[in-house]
């Protein structure tokens, strides 16, 4: 029910809508719940609405933590 997926904004449309893309699959979604979204941003898409912007730096940081958690072990 809470499933959501990061998609990239490819075009801003009228009425707080936007075109987004997930690996070449395009879709029109609503940006009414988020602020300051630009083309190129990743947003988390849930039931047709962007729930949040995804923070690329924090994402990178998480990946590093994941790698670290694994590396420590081996």
């Amino acid at each position, binding site marked *: 029910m809470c499933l959501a997926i*990061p998609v990239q904004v490819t075009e801003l449309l009228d009425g707080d809508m936007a075109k987004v893309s997930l690996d070449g699959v395009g879709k029109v979604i*609503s940006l009414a*719940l988020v602020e300051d979204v630009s083309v190129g941003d990743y947003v988390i898409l849930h039931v047709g609405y962007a*729930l949040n912007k995804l923070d690329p730096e924090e994402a990178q940081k998480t990946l590093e933590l994941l790698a670290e958690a694994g590396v420590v072990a081996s």
Partner: protein
Amino acid sequence: MKYVDEYRDGKLARGIAATIAREVRPDRPYRFMEFCGGHTHAIARYGLEDLLPENLRMIHGPGCPVCVLPVGRLNDAIKLARRPEVTLCTYADLMRVPGSDGMSLTKAKADGADIRMVYSTLDALRIAQEKPARQVVFFGIGFETTTPPSALAILQAKKLGLKNFSVFCNHVLTPAAIQAIVGAPEGASKVPLDGFVGPAHVSTVIGTRPYEHFAETYAKPVVIAGFEPLDVMQAILMLVRQVNDGRAMVENEYIRAVTQDGNLKAQETVAQVFELRDTFEWRGLGAVADSALRLRDAYAEFDAEKIFDVHTVAAQDNPACECGAILRGEKRPTDCKLFGTVCTPETPMGSCMVSSEGSCAAHWTYGRFRDSENRRAS
């Protein structure tokens, strides 16, 4: 898929698994509840159990909105759908949930009720605009993630002056449910928990703050985690470390999407349209105070409960169905006598066998080969 595939990497997973295996103390159990059905699904779908030590057990929590919806409310929705003037719009997950007398939205639809599966409240609004002669009711259900889209739809309907759109609101609140679990009176059946994997997308909306109370008051570690399998692995590692260290704090694994404050715009939108119900019935948890939302009076014209004069009659669950105990973490799917015999996804006896986030469905669909009986036989 950027920001998806990276968090499904099997090699990293094996690394983290090894770290977990190394760090858990062999002399104690680790019992973590993942609150969300999304986590339950990821655990089953990616076979995480195979990567975790024997003494670390994941307990599935009540965070599946479909699973916790009481039978009485589902009966209400079926009744609404059967009104000749009503077109009921619903997320697909709800179609097969058994109501009273073996009825379900799927069966009501086969019987002639006008029921549409939608992917978004935007679809329901579109249907209302296209069919002005129909009363379009959106079956609103879900936690804080799913509530803002319902609130927006109502605001949009008001803006458009729609006279044929309403929401049958069953939105519920995550913190109240966690409270019901951790704050339950001690007893024979109360399941001991060593920590929580906290909600992913609920937290993108409400932020990390609401969990601090639980960490503090009940001394339970909470790690908020994304729904990708590496997120879950990492969160488990973080929980193991808190337990080992004797810490009990809120940590955030899902920093790429969750902030301390959450999405304030979404919170405001919800607050504008909805208000707290005094109490609401949850399957498994019973009546929980301040645990659900209803439309404010200012939006009464979009409130299906008012328009159609809905008075929910409490209805009995199937007495053999263990969904309640499973949702409280007290039992596992295989503890239910009906699991896999009369209760399967085709003929579900309880809601947990319907949603792919339900414990019974997840175990049936992905994990049942692990059951000792099945291992033996094959």
